[in-house]
């Protein structure tokens, strides 16, 4: 009993030692010398400077000097580090170490939680927590601190990792002591993300909603200082945040670009935390010029048992497995500033992966810099990141080169305090051991041989079971024993192994083996690197991506049947020339000197298809349907340039699309008009200077009629309510517009800004609609407020009010033959387009569906079948007419000199079920052709075959593996709730 108590006291002692100043001490105080000399060490004082046989003097937690003359003051305790290497300890700028904040209580009652449940005068939305100060919730946490130390981290920037605005971070050490001494500095940076985290409020449900909420908050802060009516502690706190550098937890490479867009709008100083897939959009990330925080949690080899397992792994995941370790190398090579976070790596995995990154070409000094100097300078901490006078005494003591896989971290000195990490390899195995002239044990790999605390042999020698004895002391049963060591070099080499072999008759044979060096085995050179070529990077990083971007061509299409959509009509034996992205000539017998000539005899050349209603290429939610009016959200903030459907639709002859918000609420979000420029970044997909559009919706979706019996609280629940939502919104917008002109303290409201744009014909409505009463209603609302509805989309009962639509001047973008899927489409008829067309309404046929989007030519053909329109008119319904609705007809939609070269060459009449696009040009660039596609198919299958065999080999070589099924991006329709 007495013994036990004593033991416990010793354990607690290190923690109690530091207790002083404001603390009460129970018993005599115990001040220590706090003066230590670390001698005979190899010291990296910074990533580029190494001192041999150096002495580091540490006084009261700070470095007093680093010298090579070796003098040790008499009052200093000497720690002899002969044979050891010392590095500045690491700094992690992305951590939630020790931070625990209690969550607000969630709604127990029925229905949606529209406002925050947090008590007090704080933000309306729980995803906004600018008032959080990480230090207020910080505590020393033994397990987390110990893990961070084992990875080499003495200092981390910690904060709450929950919500879109996460308050401020604190700089803390991982030293074992009271939090009072861990905390170096508070309010170091602010912290943001796109994820609403644990907030129980439905808004925002989508990525674009997150962006909108954050932007509105930035504007609210500006407004807050101009007014006195409202007191809001969150906005006060936000005012302090914007003065600090910000850590933005963005995620994948497209989110990195999205964060940069916000930073530029608000002139913010972001340090962007990525997912480690930055190499997939290097040039765009480089142009943004924001420093990055990059993880090294490379994917493990995927478990593959058979071809069917392999089929479930996407090529981009396979390729990420191959390329992720080279991410840091690519960043460095492109001069992108970055630091490294250990986030996502458990314990030893971090050092292993760091070393892997080095073996993939990241220079060691750059790796060190990214873990020391760079993070220190980004947060302006001049006393961190180097071993120099007056710096905090934070360093790593290793038994060798840190980037050598045999090296262990032995100790972490943090604020002058020593923390043992491991005892390291005091012993190592020789290259090989000879048992006799016939049998040689070859040591393939030096893993950690002896785990100091248990003295267990960790690695196995050639798989046999044997016995291990060290210095005559019998240890646990293992396969070989060392009786002699060579102590001339550290770590000491085991000179002799003794072991026994269990024979098949269960008898035992003893054996000895003496170390010998293998002249054939080259000393493993740590500097051998595996450099990956950037030609392995595909744009986009998905199947059918390519390492080179297609370029504009000068082409002469000879003798095609040209569907001009102009006065010329459908003209046979006609030539078209394109150059510099434009159509330059249309006519007979044209010639062009430096054009590539394409023999188009027997083929049909058309303008490419324009899908007026599409939801492809959108990421993380097509609907922000959590409120009745969400005109502040923008699909443009969530464009996904990697979506495979872009390529598939190019193969269906589509060249442009309006990416629409869904139809979950009466006033949805703003559209993005894109051209299908496969391979380019999201911002480059958007049509330059395209007018603004917005989605409205009516009927069953917006009144949540088919959302289950629970969805009965959000306004509106009836068509009567839908009208009032519009009247209310536009009334508010009118008042707001007036107030903006007269009152400078008016709060900038992103939601109303968009509505004011509609009132002033600067933004145009595409309205989801089915039954005639509601179509009629919205036209009346528009007339009352003095604007015009631009397009009714779906508009399946448009034929019943075709005359009224004509009078209002609205366009119709409809389905060819959809009906009967819900009650409001019971009267839908496939002749709708033909009637509207005959009544003089401009009609388009759209998809609202990723699959149908690639067969819109066939949907147009159905209008001939059902309504007997001419082929030319049917074709315009998927080309020129949608271009008119989207107000881009001056540049695309027909074949005419001066217009964009957005062309498709078909093997057949484009309206035929048998027609296939042979080539699709956007802006004069051939993004799809049958022959290109064939090459890409080969590239895909060859790449997959190689990577799958590499993974199987890695598994054979003992790499850890994980079950993996690649997730597919959802294909959205407008009624999808997310």
């Amino acid at each position: 009993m007495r013994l036990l108590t004593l033991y416990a006291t010793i354990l607690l002692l290190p923690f109690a030692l530091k207790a002083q100043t404001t603390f009460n001490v129970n018993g005599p105080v115990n001040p220590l010398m706090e003066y230590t000399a670390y001698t005979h060490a190899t010291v990296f004082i910074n990533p580029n400077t190494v001192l041999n046989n150096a002495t580091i003097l540490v006084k009261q937690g700070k470095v007093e000097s680093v010298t090579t003359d070796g003098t040790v003051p008499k009052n200093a305790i000497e720690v002899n580090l002969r044979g050891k290497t010392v590095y500045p300890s690491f700094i992690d700028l992305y951590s939630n170490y020790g931070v625990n904040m209690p969550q607000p209580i969630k709604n127990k009652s029925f229905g949606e939680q529209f406002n925050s449940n947090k008590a007090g005068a704080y933000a309306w939305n729980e995803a906004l927590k600018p008032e959080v100060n990480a230090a207020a919730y910080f505590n020393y946490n033994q397990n987390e601190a110990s893990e961070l130390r084992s990875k080499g981290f003495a200092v981390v920037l910690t904060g709450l990792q929950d919500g879109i605005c996460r308050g401020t971070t604190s700089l803390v050490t991982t030293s074992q002591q009271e939090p009072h001494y861990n905390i170096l500095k508070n309010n170091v940076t602010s912290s943001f993300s796109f994820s609403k985290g644990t907030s129980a409020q439905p808004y925002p449900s989508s990525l674009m909603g997150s962006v909108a909420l954050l932007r509105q908050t930035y504007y609210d802060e500006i407004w807050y200082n101009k007014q006195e009516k409202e007191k809001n502690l969150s906005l006060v706190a936000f005012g302090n945040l914007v003065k600090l550098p910000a850590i933005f937890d963005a995620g994948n490479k497209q989110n990195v670009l999205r964060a940069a867009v916000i930073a530029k709008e608000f002139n913010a100083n972001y340090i962007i935390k990525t997912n480690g897939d930055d190499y997939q959009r290097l040039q765009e990330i480089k142009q943004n010029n924001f420093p990055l925080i990059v993880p090294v949690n490379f994917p493990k080899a995927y478990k593959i048992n058979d071809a069917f397992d392999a089929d479930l792994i996407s090529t981009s995941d396979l390729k990420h497995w191959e390329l992720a370790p080279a991410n840091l190398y690519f960043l460095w090579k492109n001069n992108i500033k970055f630091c490294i976070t250990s986030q996502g790596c458990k314990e030893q995995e971090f050092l292993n992966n760091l070393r892997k990154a080095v073996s993939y070409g990241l220079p060691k000094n750059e790796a060190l810099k990214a873990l020391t100097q760079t993070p220190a300078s980004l947060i302006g901490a001049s006393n961190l990141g180097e071993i120099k006078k007056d710096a905090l005494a934070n360093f790593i003591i290793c038994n060798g080169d840190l980037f050598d896989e045999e090296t262990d971290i032995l100790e972490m000195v943090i604020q002058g305090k020593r923390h043992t990490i491991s005892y390291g390899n005091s012993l190592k195995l020789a290259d090989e051991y000879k048992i006799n002239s016939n049998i040689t044990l070859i040591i393939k790999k030096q893993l950690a041989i002896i785990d100091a605390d248990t003295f267990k042999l960790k690695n196995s020698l050639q798989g046999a079971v044997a016995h291990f004895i060290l210095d005559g002391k019998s240890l646990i049963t293992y396969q070989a024993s060392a009786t002699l060591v060579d102590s001339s070099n550290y770590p000491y080499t085991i000179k002799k192994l003794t072991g026994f072999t269990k024979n098949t008759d269960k008898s035992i044979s003893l054996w000895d083996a003496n170390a010998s060096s293998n002249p054939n085995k080259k000393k493993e050179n740590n500097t051998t690197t595996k450099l990956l070529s950037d030609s392995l990077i595909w744009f986009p990083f998905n199947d059918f991506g390519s390492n080179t971007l297609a370029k504009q061509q000068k082409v002469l299409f000879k003798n095609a049947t040209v569907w001009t959509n102009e006065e010329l009509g459908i003209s046979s034996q006609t030539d078209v020339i394109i150059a510099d992205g434009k159509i330059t000539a249309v006519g007979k017998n044209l010639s062009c000197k430096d054009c590539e000539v394409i023999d188009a005899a027997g083929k049909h050349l058309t303008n490419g298809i324009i899908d007026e209603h599409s939801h492809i290429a959108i990421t993380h939610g097509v609907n922000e349907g959590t409120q009745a009016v969400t005109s502040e959200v923008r699909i443009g903030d969530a464009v996904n340039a990697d979506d495979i459907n872009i390529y598939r639709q190019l193969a269906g002859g589509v060249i442009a699309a309006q990416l629409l918000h869904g139809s979950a609420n009466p006033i949805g979000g703003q559209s993005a008009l894109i051209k299908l420029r496969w391979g380019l970044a999201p911002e480059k997909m958007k049509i330059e200077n395209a007018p603004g559009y917005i989605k409205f919706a009516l009927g069953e979706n917006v009144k949540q009629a088919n959302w289950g019996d629970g969805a009965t609280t959000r306004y509106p629940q009836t068509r009567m309510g839908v009208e009032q939502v519009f009247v209310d919104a536009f009334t508010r917008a009118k008042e707001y517009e007036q107030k903006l002109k007269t009152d400078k303290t008016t709060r900038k409201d992103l939601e109303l800004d968009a509505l004011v744009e509609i009132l002033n014909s600067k933004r145009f409505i595409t309205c989801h609609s089915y039954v005639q009463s509601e179509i009629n209603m919205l036209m009346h609302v528009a007339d009352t407020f003095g604007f015009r509805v631009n397009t009714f989309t779906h508009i399946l009962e448009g034929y019943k009010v075709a005359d009224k639509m004509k009078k209002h001047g609205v366009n119709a973008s409809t389905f060819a033959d959809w009906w009967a899927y819900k009650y409001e489409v019971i009267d839908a008829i496939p002749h709708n387009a033909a009637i509207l067309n005959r009544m003089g309404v401009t009609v388009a046929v759209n998809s609202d569906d990723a699959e149908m989007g690639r067969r819109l030519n066939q949907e147009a053909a159905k209008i001939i079948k059902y309504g007997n329109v001419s082929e030319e008119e049917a074709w315009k319904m998927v080309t020129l007419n949608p271009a008119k609705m989207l107000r881009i007809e001056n540049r695309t939609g027909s074949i005419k000199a001066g217009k964009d070269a957005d062309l498709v060459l078909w093997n057949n009449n484009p309206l035929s079920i048998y027609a296939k696009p042979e080539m699709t040009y956007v802006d004069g660039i051939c993004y799809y052709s049958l022959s290109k596609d064939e090459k890409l198919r080969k590239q895909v299958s060859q790449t997959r075959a190689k990577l799958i065999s590499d993974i199987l080999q890695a598994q054979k070589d003992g790499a850890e593996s994980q079950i993996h099924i690649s997730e597919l991006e959802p294909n959205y329709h407008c009624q999808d709730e997310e």
Partner: protein
Amino acid sequence: MKNNIFTTLLLLISFSSIKAQQIPVIIVGGTVHIGNGKIINNGYVAFDSGMFVFVDSVMRNSYKNATIIDAKGKHIYPGLFLLNTYLGLNEIDAVRATRDYQETGEINPNVRALIAYNTDSRVVPTAKFNGITYLQVVPQGGLVSGTSCVVKTEAYNWEDAVVNEDGIHMNWPEVNHYQKNEEQQKRLADQLVSLNTLIAEARQYQYKSVTNKTNLRLQAMQAIINQTRVLYVHAQSAKAILETIEFIKQNQPLKAVIVTGSNAHLVIDELKTANIPVIINLIHSLPNRNHHDIDQPFKTVAQLFNKGVTVSIGFSGSWESRNVMYTAGTCAAYGINKEQALQLITENAAKITGNQQQLGTIEAGKNATLIISEGDVLDMKESKLTHLFINGETCDLENSQTELYKKYSKRYGIEAK
């Protein structure tokens, strides 16, 4: 009274409608697509008393009082089959009261699509409008969803509509890949046991039971055991298809058909070797994985067809399945010819549902079910029906949609072309 007996007799013999064909019809001059891959240009098709009398490139018989239809420049096809639909069991997807395709519980071989088939559906006539004369109406959901039927698209009641009750539908248990966990694996194993048990119990059921009690489910399964009906196994993933093939092998003898989709290309050789007919569902789909060829769903059927697998196509769904002929058209653009594509939804569909003796092709002796189209019926650009006959009876192509078309065209004073 006499008349009544006569019609009852007719019903028993040929399941034809109450008003049987009275006058012979001869169609002259069109392109006759037989349905078995063959074609006759400028052909003659004659039918009488609901049966084809002759089909040839020369006039062979003459009927003095026959109705002559000039089909010059037009195309004549056998009536089209729509397999694997739930049209007629569902009117409006979003309105629960109109959904009749899925019974509760896992093992429902005894529920019959036929008796719930709605001959008065407003949706079915829109499928008929496109040339569909026969539906295979299939119950959905569960492990064994029920007994399907083949019905005519023009009828007054289900007794009038029925061609046959062709098979029982089994949904092969599959793991949702995104939530592969132990609980699911266990459920999967349990489901496999219950399917194997079902077949084993059904085999024993033909002998006298120990308890001597009637079991409606096992009784329904007798049609599978004695091979008078087809066991349709619906399987999606490649692994599930292989497991299905193994299951069918283990439980022989039975007549089986695999209903699958765009993963079938991963196991074409296995399907060929197994010698089991296949229905490929939903040709107009996106590829299952990003790396699959972008046109994979379009060409899977041709890949199977060209290997010699008996293949047809299905279109699970309701209103949208009226487009099945265009999905056949797509097959013709991706690896087979147009006549072969037609064969998928005529002869092969009849064969798979056990009706090849009387349906599926325009051949003398078969039921006179045919359509005449102005152009290629597989191409929406020109597929426009002028005539549709079921068992020699001409059928109305008007429907609620054409009526609304006319009504509003009239209102605006425009032509309803």
